Each structure stands twice: as C-alpha cells, then as structure tokens.
C-alpha cells in the first residue's frame, strides 16, 4: 500500500511538468526500492496511478458537469462518460503497473 501512495504522490508532482510517460519513472524507482514480488508490484503500481489519474479525471468530469467527457464518450463509441474516466484510470494504471513490476524485477534478480 505504501508503494501505491508513494507512486501516487510522486507521479502527481512529476506529471505537472513532465510529459505523460514520466508516470513510469516513480514506478521503476519505487518498484526497485521495495523489491516486492512481480505480481504484487504490478498491482500496487497499477493502483497508485489508477487512483491518481482516475481521481483527477473524475474531479474534472464533475467540475465540468460531464460536458467534455460525454462528448469524448460519444466520439469513442462508449456508453457513458464514466467509462471514459475508467479508461483514463486504466491507461495510467497499466503503465505504472508495468513500470513498478519491471523495477522490482530488476532488483529481485540481484537479490537472488
């Protein structure tokens, strides 16, 4: 859980001024640092950015009265703007999950 929180906070800060793929960096570093097993690493890493991106998107969706998310949902052909929020969360989570897993694996082999 600590992994997720650390990743969430560092991604939040980095993403403010770095391009989107910088969200992989905390996962790599923190995954390496905590050197958990691959699957848990993936899950904690996934959760961290899933919550960050999903939460951020949800906030915007609500503050915007769903105007843009509804339009994007129609553009993508998905049923509801909340699915757009979900897709956002999943994309972010996916990248961070693989990053964290990779980080942990790189340290793991040394431990062996």
């Amino acid at each position, binding site marked *: 859980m600590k992994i997720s929180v650390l990743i969430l906070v560092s991604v939040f800060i980095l993403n403010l001024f770095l391009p*989107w793929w910088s969200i992989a960096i905390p996962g790599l570093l923190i995954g390496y640092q905590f050197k958990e097993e691959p699957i848990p690493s993936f899950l904690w890493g996934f959760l961290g950015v899933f919550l960050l991106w999903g939460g951020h*998107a949800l906030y915007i969706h609500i503050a915007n009265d769903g105007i843009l998310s509804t339009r994007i949902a129609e553009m993508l052909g998905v049923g509801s703007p909340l699915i757009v929020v979900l897709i956002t969360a999943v994309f972010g989570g996916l990248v961070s999950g693989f990053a964290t897993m990779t980080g942990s694996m790189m340290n793991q*082999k040394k431990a062996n």
Partner: protein
Amino acid sequence: MLKSLSSFIVLVAIIVTLNTKIGSIPPLGKFFDPDAGFWANAETHIPESEELNIEGLLDNVSIVFDERRVPHIFAQNEHDLFFSQGYVTAQQRLFQMEIQTYDAAGRLSELIGENPAVQERDRTTRRWGMPWAAERKINAYQQDSTIWAILNAYADGANAYISTLEPDEYPVEYKIMDIAPEEWSPLKSVHLEMNMYRTLSGGSSDDRTSNTIAYFGEEYVEKFFGTNPQQMEPIIPPSRTWDFEPEVPPSPDSLFVPKTGKRIQYFDPKAGVGSNNWVVHGSKTKNGHPILVGDPHLSLSLPSIWMEIQLNAPTINAYGVSFQGLPGYLIGFNEHIAYTETNVALDVMDWYEIEFKDERLNEYWHDGQWKPTTKRIEQVQVRDAEAIVDTIVYTHHGPVSVTNPDSEAPVYHAMRWIAHEADIGIRTFYELSKAKDYDEFVDALRPFGAGAQAFAFASTEGDIAIWVNGKLPKKWKYQGRTVSDGTDPAYDWQGWIPHEEKPFVKNPEQGFVSSANQEPAHDTYPYYLADKFAPYERGRRINDLLREKDDITPQDMMDMQMDNYSLHAESIMPNLLEWLIVDSLDFEETEFSTQMYVWNYEMNADLQQPGFFYYWWREITWSIFGDEYGATGERLRLPGRDRTVEVLKAEPDFFLIDDIETEKKETIQEIVTAAYKAAYNTMATYNGNVGASWNWGRVMNNDIDHVGQIPGFGANDVYSGGSFEAINATRFGYGPSWRMVVELGPEVRGWGVYPGGISGNPGSPNYDEFIENWRTGKHFELNFYREKPENSLFELSIKPLK
C-alpha cells in the same frame, strides 16, 4: 535477468504504442493524460479576468466579455483593434480558423494523411485555382495600404495568441488529430476569403444545361428554365425603371454545342445555401424608424460559422458577426447604418471547351491563333506519405480543370470564375463598418467582386435600399449557361456592368425591400444575369406578409423569421389530393390522408403532415424525372419545384408523367397515388407507426455537425420546424446560421441569435449555449455598448509589452 528485461521491453512497447498516432486514433497515453490531454480542455470554471502584456500593440486595449461571452473590443486605434480581433478569434476559434484555411489551400492531406477522398478534395481545390487566386488577391491587397496594414495587424494578433500556446493548451481537436497550430498570415486570411466564395458562388450547371438541351431540346429548357413562375417577385420591384444605355455584348449566331458535358469536375455547393433579408421603411413601423432583418442560410456547424463581436475604436463603433480568419465582420450595424447580405446566384462560373495543339498542352486555339498556356506545379504534401504533384495548365480563361480520358478526342475544360479576380473584397466590409449614410454605403460596395450578394441597407436617416452587388460580367442572353466555346472570343467575359447600372432600388413606394435568392430583376433589366435562382416561394411569402403589415415592431420581425408557412404546399396540395385515387389506399394510408386534407401548410415541428409532404413530393419528382433523366446516363438539370408545380397544374398529361419503364402510359393520378404509398412506406419504415415519431421536428433529422466532423462534438436532433421554401429555412442541418433584427432609431438596437456559442471549445458550456434560444426563435438583445461597460463576465486588460 531475462524476466526483468522482457518486462522492461513490454513497458517500453506500451509507452511507445500509447504515444503514437495509429490511423485516426490519437496517441492514447498523451490523449488521456489528465494534466495535458483532452481533460485539460474541460472548463471547470468561468474564465477569470486577466491582465496581459502583449508585444505588438501600440496602446492599451480592453476586451470585455459580456454575459454570453460575446467579446467587445475597446481599442485606441484601428491597428490595435484588428490586432485584438485576431487575438480573440484565435483564442476562441483557432481550430475552425485553421481547418478552413487548410481546406481552402488544398492542404488537408498535410493534417489527415493518406485518404483518397481527402487527397481528391485537395487536388480539386488546386485545380480550381483556389491557392493561385489567393496569391493574386494578396498582390492586390498589398497595393491597398490600409487593408494590408489591417490584414497584418490581424495576423500579428492571432500569432500573439498562438505563440503562447503550450501543447497542453492546444484546442482538443489538435490533440485528437495530433497536430500543432501554425503561424497565421495575411495569405491565410485570403484563403479563408476564397473558401467563402467557393461556398457562395462555387457552383455551376453548365454541363447539366448543355446535356439537357441535347436530350430534351431547347423548347424544354426554355419552358422550365427560361420561364419564370407567375408568382415570382424579383428582388428589385417593378416600380424601378432603368434609365441608362446598356452595352450588351452581341451574341453569336448559333449556340455552341459542346463535344460532351461529361466529367466537368464540379464542386456542388451545399444545397440550400441562400438567405433572407428584408428592410421595412419607417412609414410601416411603429416608431417610425426603419427595421432591417437578415438571416444567412448556411450549413449549420459547431462551432458556428459566425462569431458575434463588437469593434470599438475612435473611428469605429460596430457590432456584427465575423468570419473566423477575416478581419472585420460581414453582417451587422454601427451607430448609423445596418446591412446584411443574401446570395444572388449569378452565373459567374463558366466552363470553356479548350482545343489544344497537341498533348503537350503548351498552346491552345483562341481568336484565330495559337496562344501559349502557363503551367503551375501544385504539390500536395501528405502526412506520413509521399507528396502528390500535379501540373495545372492555365489559359486566359483560367485553370484547365479536368480532362475526359475516355473519349477518342480528349476534351479539356477551363474554368472562368469570378473568385479568381484580383479583387479586395475585405475593403468593402471595412468601409461598410464605418459608413454613416446611404452614399457612403454605395461607395463601400465598389471593391467587392466575387459572389454577387444582395446587400440590404437601412440608416438612422430613414433610408432603405437593396443592391445586387459584385463584379457582374456583361453577358448576352444565356451566355455561359451552357458549356462555352473556348476558342471563340464571343464567349469570353466582355467587361463589367458599371456600378450605377447594377440592379438596386432605394426607398421604393412599396415601403420595403427584400430578397430570398430569387430572380434579381424583371425582364426589363437589360443585362443577362443568370437563369437559375431559388424558387419564388420564400421571397413571395416575405413580400406578402410585409405588404399586409403595419405598425411593425422588432418583435414582429423576429416572429416573422420563424414563419414556417409553405407556399409550395399551398400551391400543389389541393391538386395532389384531387389526383389521389383514394380507393387504391389501404386502411392506414386512408386514415392518415385525413390529416393531409386538414393541413394548414405550416411546416411546424409538432405536425406530422410536413414530413409526409416532403417525402410525397420527393417521390413525385423522382417518378416524373427519374426515369427519363436516368435513361440518358448523363448529368442533367432538374427543374425547380415551382415551375414543376406550374407545369403539372397546367398540363397534367405532360409527357414526363409517363413511366418509360412500363408498357402502359401512366396518368398523373397513378403517379401521385404510387408516390403517396411510397412516401407512407418510407415514413413507416424509418419512423414506425403514425404518432409523435412522425413529427417533422424529428423527421427533419436536424443535426448540427462539428466543423471537423468529429462525432460527439456536434448537436444531434435539434428539434425545429422550417423548410427549404419557408422563411424559417431550417432543414436537415442547414438553415439560418444567424438571425438578426436591427432597429435604426431612435438609438440603433439589435437582436440576434445563432445555433452555437462564442467559445469553440467543446469542453465549454458556452460552446452550444445559444442553440435553445435559436431553436425556439428567442433572439437575444445584443449589447451594443457606446462606452466600455463597468460590468462583465470577465475582461482582458491588455497593455503593450515595452
């Protein structure tokens, strides 16, 4: 080791995939990023007032946004005024500005990549000489120091905004297409001007008319196209007589018969491009001052084609609707006058059959000798693919647009088009915005060349007028109606109608002027203008109502703009019901027919008869013309519905009624009944049982599409009444793109509405804010400030950066 490496590879692969545009799918990681992707375009609060320092301004400027976010620019000089207009237009509508100029320059392929339809469109744009004409116009604008300075100020202002944009601030369409904004320039403004002319005057039926004569004869063409319906009232009323000596060029002894009418590459203007305008004299209004009314009809889009704006500087105080990318505005008013335009479909595009010396296309025959061509290489850049190179051949007529590779003797056609002229149309709108009376209005009209427009006018001095304006070529009767002989100088354009000899009228006895794309003038007008105009119904309905009315108020005029009455239905429905063989109808069809008998001819959203009538008449038209026309295998010209109605009523046994695909000879009764059944079948198939789903507001399928056709970014099913032939000319995504009423006294006041908003950001609630008012005919009162207001929704206070 291997496991972590493969995990790393997967990670990189995911990132790269999500960072790459695949087909039309944007880079997904970038796109969904809440900080920089489309989420960043979602407006979470009303914009706040800002203080800015911008380089390029001469003095302070305030841009005040009112409760509807309409920008009101208060500047200390004209340079800053137009600079600020460029800035605020880019701020609100950047994507719209760019996509339209890319289209007009034939550069869509640069943005969209490999796509045959897009490439073909770009090549056609080049073959039509659009970029070439823009360059000619730029040269002319450079000779006019005032307008050249304005074009540059506007571009500088737009660039002042564009240069501040970081990728996360790009409009959402840029993120979807994964493109970046380009620098603006005067040339891009002129490309936009060309785009406007293409929409308004980029149509021609020369080939269709030639073919129709070839297959159906001159008498047929004279009957349907050369004869006006009895009910037609030309724009210029009969009270106007002409007191000049016209110089009409001589016509050739016999009309040139072209080798073929096939394959002239055409660009059919969107159906229903047209407009209404009318002005009532103070003698007919409640407060004794004139009222001017206008609604231009265009394809409805989001963002709207127009944007409301007020321009205020020591030398101008004006309010109008602007075209995004052009400085100034096209329709509106100042403290003295008001004006609005309708399209007048003069024949200003002619096609010439060219005889080349050989396949090198270096020389062509004209006026008894071989003349040299010029060649222009057009390169269409294609995103992520190889550029396409075309060589366009130019004759003195214009560009050679297409060849006919199928025939043994190749046929080449060159295009002469008014929009190719080196005119400076923007000057007209600049001068109009500052004009104070009728004489200044008339002078301001002079520079305007392309796309004849009927300019309606009213002034605080009490004058009303309407001018059919543009550069009007002097033609012999029917010149250019068919494909012309490119070798014979008799078919060339031989001069322009002098300004004072154009069709116009000022303060006519009838107390009003109006236009609705109908015939400009009676047969007494000595010059030939064209023979293809809108059917009479809209113009006639406007005049009928204005004749009856007195003590007119602005609200009366706003209500009249929403009039849904169909003179077309009135003229033919009694006959259709008489011809209908009721015994042939089944139970449900008979039951519905009772509705048609009691219909009041209103094309209202809540009625079921209008939709049915639309399909019924469409079936009738097809069954009359479809078989004979289809059999020729050529493009032919369809008669207007108003003449068709007249001929049908006078000659119910007209030869076209017969269906040539059957042995027997059909009667009008059989055709009308079969059409009724077909229409009923269509309505039932698409809309189910008779009920609310048959309401015209639904059947009309009035979708307002996004300018870039992005699904979800438009407005679907905007429930409305109206019709091609009604004053409220709304239908199928076209219609009144702006409705305006202006009262010219005691103080100039305006009301207006268009179906959209100010902001071009689909993530803003303001994007489509005005649609509901437009739909229900509730115009907004326009804030025409005489001084910078204290209160506003938000304000930009801009100082020059020293």
